[in-house]
Structure formats: C-alpha cells, structure tokens
C-alpha cells in the first residue's frame, strides 16, 4: 500500500487507511481480536459443573428404586438441553462475529469503489477537459463483483441470524413495554432509543394536545460517547491539533460506532449522524449515511 503512508498528511484516501488498519493483514492490525471472549465458555463451564455434581451423586443412587432411575434420566435430559443451548450460543456468537467482519469488508469494498471513481473523476476533469465520467476501470468491476459476493454472504448470514434476532427484539420490546408501564411514560430511554417523534404535550389545564413532530434526537450510550471521544481525539492528533502523546485507537472507535449505527433503524441512524457531526465540531470531517450501502461514513471536508 502506497497511499496510506503518503496520505497521512495530505488527507487523501484516509478512509482506506482507516479500514485497512482495522481489518487488514497482520502488519495492519488484523490479528487484533474482537471475539466476544468474555462470555466464552460460561455455559460450557456450567455444564462441566453439573457433570461433576452428577458424577459425585451417581454412586450414592440406588437404582433399584424406580424414582432414582427417573431422576438420572432427568439429569441426562437436562444436560442434553444445556449442551444444546451452549452449542446455540456458540453458533450465535460465531455468526455475529462473522457478520460483523463481512459487513466491514463490504464497507471497505464500497469505499474502494468510491475512491477509485473519485480519482478517475478528478483525473478526467483535470486532464481531459471535463468529460463525462465513464466506469471503464476493470478493477472497479472486479471490486463490484467482490462487493456483490459479500452482499450475498451478508444476506445469508442475516437470514441465519434472523430468527434469533427476532426473538431478541421481541424480548427487548416486551421489556421496554413493561418498563413503560411501570414508569407510566410513553417512551423509555435506552442506549439505542431516540427521543422525539410525535410528542404529546400535557397542558396546564390537564388536556392533552398533539404538538408538532419533533426531530429525532440520539441519546448516546456511554460506550458510544467514549468511542466518539476517541475518534475526535484521533482526528485532532491526525491534524496535529493536539500532541499524540495519548495513545488512542481511532479505527477501533470507528468500528464500534459503525457497529452501533448498523443496528439502528433509519430514523435513528439519521439522528445518530446529527449527533456525530455535533461531536466532530470544527474538525475537517463530516459524518454521513451512505444511502447505497446503508453504512456510516466519514468524509474529509478540507
């Protein structure tokens, strides 16, 4: 890669650098694991514990008593159920991990295509007196093909994960509903929720009246705030506005924000983009939603 080293100062192709740093080869940090290792093996450890308990009790059981045979069978069935649950969680974690990586690769392909088209467009404008841009670069077609493959993989993974996500959402919705009932409010604020919509303002006289729809506002989670803070700091360091003595992982912060963005509804994504741009402030970057790929992107404005 030639561009990333040149462009650290010039600002061209920064997105490419950002993406390759996050998931490229070993020299660019690919081995940095994002596996959900903290939960790894909890269910399996519980099964191990159950097996140990059962083994200890097994010797003391009198199998001449029919009830004890039932008890043994019950324990085997319970273990089977737990083991299947453990396998299910493992598959889910693995699919989520893969999905995240495929999405990231897909975003990278999209960014590369855009970058190539931009370079072509600029080149043509400068050299060939502003002719209409025509995609003739065969590598763009190659990249498009790669992107299509990734989209198909992503769709398949989404289908595989769909059932579990639906279950999760149903549980989440039920939880929100019960919280709302308890609070007596029409909304709840969680990390992913947005405020706003058609607000019902309670008047002093006790009558309720629908007010004008308010614009959605993103309520950041602590993790989002931290990631955003890291990213802004990385931007400042890249622009030499602050000393680079504090180590900050910009690509990881970008990845975390992208992940949050990906799990939101379209209106929440818009609110999220507004919030991100507020946080960026005067830095020469602008966050936006890529309507084609539906991903979060950052463009350099100066």
């Amino acid at each position, binding site marked *: *890669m*030639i*561009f990333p080293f040149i462009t650290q100062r010039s600002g061209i192709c920064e997105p*490419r650098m950002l993406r*390759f740093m996050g998931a490229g*080869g070993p020299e660019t940090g*690919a*081995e940095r694991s994002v*596996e959900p290792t903290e939960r*790894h*093996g909890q269910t*399996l450890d519980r*099964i*191990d514990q159950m*097996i140990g308990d059962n*083994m200890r009790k*097994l*010797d003391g*059981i009198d*199998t001449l008593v*029919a009830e004890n*045979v*039932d008890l*043994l*069978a*019950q*324990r*085997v069935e319970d*273990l*089977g159920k737990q*083991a*299947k*649950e*453990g*396998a*299910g*969680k*493992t*598959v889910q*974690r*693995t699919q989520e*991990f*893969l999905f995240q*990586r*495929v999405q990231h*690769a897909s975003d*990278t392909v999209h960014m*590369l295509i855009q970058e190539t088209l931009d*370079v072509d467009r600029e080149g043509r404008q400068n050299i060939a007196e502003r002719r209409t841009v025509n995609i003739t*670069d065969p*590598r763009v077609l*190659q*990249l498009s093909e*790669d992107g299509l*493959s*990734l989209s198909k*993989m992503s769709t*398949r*993974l989404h289908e*595989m994960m769909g059932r579990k996500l639906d279950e999760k959402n149903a549980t989440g919705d039920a939880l929100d509903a019960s919280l709302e009932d308890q609070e007596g409010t029409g909304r709840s604020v969680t990390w992913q929720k947005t405020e706003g919509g058609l607000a019902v303002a309670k008047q002093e006289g006790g009558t309720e009246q629908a007010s004008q729809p308010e614009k959605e506002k993103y309520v950041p989670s602590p993790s989002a705030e931290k990631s955003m803070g890291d990213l802004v700091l990385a931007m400042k360091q890249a622009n030499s506005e602050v000393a680079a003595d504090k180590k900050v992982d910009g690509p990881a912060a970008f990845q975390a924000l992208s992940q949050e963005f990906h799990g939101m509804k379209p209106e929440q994504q818009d609110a999220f983009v507004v919030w991100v741009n507020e946080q960026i402030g005067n830095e020469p970057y602008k966050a936006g939603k890529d309507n084609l790929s539906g991903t979060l992107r950052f463009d350099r404005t100066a």
Partner: protein
Amino acid sequence: MPKTQTDPSGVLPFPKELPPLPDNGTELYDSIMQMVEPELVSKELPKVRERLKAEKPEEVKAHARRYMEAFSTFNQIMKQSEKAMHKEIKQFVHTAYASLEQTTNAMDAEKITQLEETFAEQKAVKQKTPEEIMREADKAPDPNIK
C-alpha cells in the same frame, strides 16, 4: 475453508463463499455428539428415559456414567470447536483483505505510472529544428527589445 492459494495468473482470489459454519446450535450439537455418543444426538435425547428404564438396575449406573462422560467430552470438543470456527473466520477475512489489497496495490501502481507519464510529458522540451531557428532569425526585430 476459504481458498487461499493463488490461481495460475498469480491473482489472489476473493472468497466467494462463507466459511462452512453450522447453521444453528442443533446442527453443531449433533455434529459433535454423533462422534462422541450417538445415543445422545438431539433426535435420540427423548428416548434416554426409556433406555435407562429398560436397563437392568446394575447397568443403569454404568450407562448413566457413560452419558455423563460423553457430555464432558462434548464440552471439551465444543470449546475447541468455537476457536476453530473463529480461526476459519479470521482466515476468510484475511483472504478477503489480502485480495482487496492486491487489487488496490495494482490500482495504485497504475495511477502512479499514469502520473509519471503526465509529468514526463510536461517536462519534455521540444527541440527547435535548424529551419525554425533560421526563420526566427529572419524576422524583423521585436520593437519592444531595445
């Protein structure tokens, strides 16, 4: 396992398919348990009670112990299995990015060649022919030159 070898043309192929992972937990459970204890695969689990009840009392404990040990072995394989699946994913991602990097490197090289050609064209100074020099010498002097 995604293909990581280069094709004869030397181009690293972009992976076209996902790494072979189980669709769901039951599939993973059955694939492991089939090797460990076929009597405990998900289809056979509901029959465990009947099996144990049909055993002689002295055999029940041994059978139950065999099942417990099977679950213990299952657990050990399961832990390794997740690591193996993640390794496959990393391999898949690595292949994808290596292929993309190869494509972008080729694009970068091409762009740089184009830029170098453009600079070379701009720098090239056209040498005047003797006829051109003679023609210029025959011209009336520029009135602005004193």
